[in-house]
C-alpha cells in the first residue's frame, strides 16, 4: 500500500498484487471548463470546476463504482481518464504510461487498450453503419486482422460474445432494441481487447429487466477477459451489485472511497449516508423503519463552489471549521478513505 500526497488531495494508490503496479492510477485529476463572455473579444469570467482533484487506482479485473448525483462530475471524470476531455491538471497513469502528456497519435494507439460504453444506446451508434461495422470498426482502426475472412470471423465472434446473432451483422442500429443496441456498444468497446472499460451509466436508459441482462453480461465479460471497469452510475443498488470498490463524488471531488461492503455497511461521510438512505428497502417492515436523510437545497454551482468542504452548505453535521480548509481524503479504516473533518 502506497500513498501519494500532495497539497490539496491525498490519493489512495493501491498496489497491484501481481505486478506491484495498478492498471490505472489517477492523481489530482482536474477538469475546469472556462466560461467565456463577450462576442468578439472573449474573456474568461470563471471556470466550471467539473472535476476538481480526484485520485484513485484500479487493479486488473477490478470494478470501481463511481456514484454521485447529476452534476457531480462523474461522467466528466470518466471522459478525462480516457483523455476524451482534456484534463486541466493531474496525472493519469494507465498500464505504466502517463496519458495526460501523450501526443494525440500515441493516445490514439493507446485507445486499443481502453474502451467506453455510453449511456444512450440510441445516440451512441452511427445510424448509417451496419452492426457489423460498428462492432468491427476498432479492428479496422487498429489493423487487427489480416484478411477479410478473419475480420468477418472476429466480428461474428464479438456479436456472439455479447449474445447477439452473427446474422445480425448487416442490420442497421434502428433495427435493434435498446438492450440489443447496448450489447452492440459493449461489443464495440470490447473489440480491440482492452484492459479497461469506462461504463458511463450503461444501463440507466434501459428497462429494469433488460438492465439485469446487461449487468450479467458485463460481469461475464469481466471474468472472461479480465477487464477492469469504471462503472459510473447513480443507481446505488446496481453499483452495489457490480462493484468491488465504490467512490462517491460530490461537486467534482471524491468525498468517500471504500470497498463495496464497507461503504454500504459503514458509510462515514454525511453525503454518503444521505445518498444511501435514499435507497428503498425491499422489505416493507424495514422500509417503514428506514431513516431518510433529506438534504436541503440543490447541488451548488460548480462555477462558484463553496469554500472549504464543498458539502458544508447542505451538510447536517457541518460546523464553522468546515468553511475553512478543504478536508483531505484520509484513511480511517482498511481501504476506507473519507474527506470529512467530523468523522
Amino acid at each position: 500500500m502506497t500513498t501519494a500526497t500532495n497539497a490539496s488531495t491525498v490519493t489512495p494508490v493501491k498496489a497491484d498484487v501481481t505486478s506491484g503496479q495498478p492498471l490505472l492510477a489517477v492523481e489530482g485529476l482536474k477538469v475546469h471548463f472556462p466560461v467565456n463572455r463577450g462576442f468578439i473579444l472573449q474573456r474568461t469570467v470563471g471556470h466550471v470546476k467539473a472535476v476538481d482533484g480526484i485520485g484513485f487506482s484500479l487493479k486488473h479485473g477490478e470494478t470501481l463504482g463511481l456514484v454521485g448525483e447529476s452534476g457531480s462530475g462523474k461522467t466528466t471524470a470518466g471522459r478525462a481518464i480516457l483523455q476524451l476531455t482534456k484534463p486541466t491538471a493531474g496525472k493519469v497513469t494507465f498500464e505504466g504510461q502517463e496519458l495526460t502528456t501523450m501526443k494525440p497519435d500515441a493516445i490514439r494507439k493507446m485507445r486499443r487498450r481502453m474502451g467506453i460504453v455510453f449511456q444512450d444506446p440510441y445516440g451512441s451508434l452511427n445510424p448509417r453503419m451496419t452492426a457489423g461495422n460498428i462492432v468491427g470498426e476498432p479492428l479496422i482502426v487498429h489493423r487487427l486482422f489480416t484478411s477479410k475472412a478473419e475480420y468477418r470471423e472476429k466480428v461474428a465472434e464479438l456479436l456472439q460474445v455479447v449474445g447477439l446473432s452473427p446474422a445480425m451483422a448487416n442490420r442497421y442500429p434502428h433495427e435493434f432494441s435498446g438492450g440489443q443496441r447496448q450489447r452492440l456498444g459493449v461489443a464495440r468497446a470490447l473489440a480491440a481487447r482492452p484492459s479497461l472499460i469506462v461504463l458511463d451509466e450503461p444501463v440507466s436508459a434501459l428497462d429494469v429487466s433488460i438492465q439485469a441482462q446487461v449487468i450479467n453480461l458485463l460481469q461475464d465479460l469481466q471474468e472472461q477477459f479480465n477487464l477492469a471497469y469504471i462503472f459510473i452510475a447513480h443507481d446505488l443498488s446496481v453499483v452495489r451489485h457490480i462493484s468491488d470498490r465504490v467512490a462517491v463524488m460530490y461537486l467534482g471531488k471524491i468525498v468517500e472511497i471504500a470497498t463495496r461492503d464497507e461503504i454500504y455497511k459503514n458509510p462515514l461521510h454525511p453525503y454518503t449516508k444521505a445518498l444511501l438512505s435514499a435507497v428503498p428497502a425491499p422489505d416493507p417492515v424495514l422500509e417503514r423503519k428506514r431513516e431518510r436523510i433529506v438534504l436541503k437545497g440543490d447541488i451548488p454551482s460548480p462555477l462558484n463552489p463553496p469554500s472549504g468542504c464543498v458539502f458544508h452548505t447542505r451538510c447536517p453535521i457541518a460546523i464553522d471549521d468546515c468553511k475553512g480548509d478543504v478536508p483531505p481524503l484520509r484513511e480511517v479504516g482498511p481501504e476506507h478513505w473519507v474527506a470529512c473533518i467530523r468523522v
Partner: protein
Amino acid sequence: MRGTGRALRKNPNLLAGTVILTIMALIAIITVTPGARLVARYDPQALAVVHRLEQPSASHWFGTDRLGRDIYARTLHGAKVSLVVAVSVALSVTVIGMTIGITVGYNRTADNLVMRVMDGMMSFPTLVLALALVATLGSSLFNVVLVICIVDTPGMTRVVRGVVLSLRERSYVESARAIGASMPRVLFRHIAPNTLAPVIIQASVFFAGAILTEAALGFLGVGTPEYIPSWGNIISAGREYVTINFWISFFPGLFLALTVLAANLVGDGLRDVLDPRLRGAT
C-alpha cells in the same frame, strides 16, 4: 448501388423525377449531336421573318418568336445550357460547401472568420450580387456557373456547418474518437454521411435555383448570350409578347418548371433512399 430498381419502384416520386430528368438530359445530349435534326427540324438560329410570331402549328409545334425562329427547336437546344448550369452548380456547391462546412464546423478555429465572410455574402440579395459579378466578369456560360456557385456556396456551407455542429456532440462521434479513429475517419465515416440528408435537399434546391437564376440573368440581359438559346433567354425574349403570343415564353417555361419539379422530387426521393432508417426494414 444495390437495390436501385427496388428503390425506384417503392418510391413513385423518385421514379417520376428520374424519368423527367433523364428525358431532359437525353434532349440536351441529342441536341449537340448530328441527331439534333431528327428531334427538331429547324435550326434554332434560323431566321424566317416572314413566319414571325406564328401560333403553334404542325410545322412549328411551339410556334415562332419575333424573328421567326422555331420555339420548339430553341427550347430543346436550350435544355443544354440550363442543365449544364444546374448540374455544375449543384455538384460544385455541394463539394465546396461540404468541404468548408465540415472543416469549420468540426475544427472551430477558423469558424468565426469564415462564417462572418459567408454572412457578408449572404447579406446581398442573390440576384443583385450575381448581376454585379456577371457584369464585371462578362457574360459567358462559365461565368454564369461561377457566379451562381459563388452566391450559393454560403447557403450550403451554413447548412453543413449547422449539421456538423450538432453531430460533433453526438455520442457516436465521441465513440469514434474513443476507439482511436483518426480525424479523417471521424469526418468521412461518421460526420459526412450523416450530413447527407439536408445536403441532398439543399443541392436539389440549388439545382432548381440555378436554372431559375440563369433564366433570371438571361431575362435581365446579362446571362448566356442570346445566340446560345437557354430557357432563360427564350422566356426573356418572349416577355414583350406574353399577353398576345404567350407560347414564346410558355413552352420553355413549361420545360423549366418540369425540370425544377423533377429535381425536387429526385432530391426528396434520394434522401429517403439513402437513409437506412427509411429504407424499409429488412
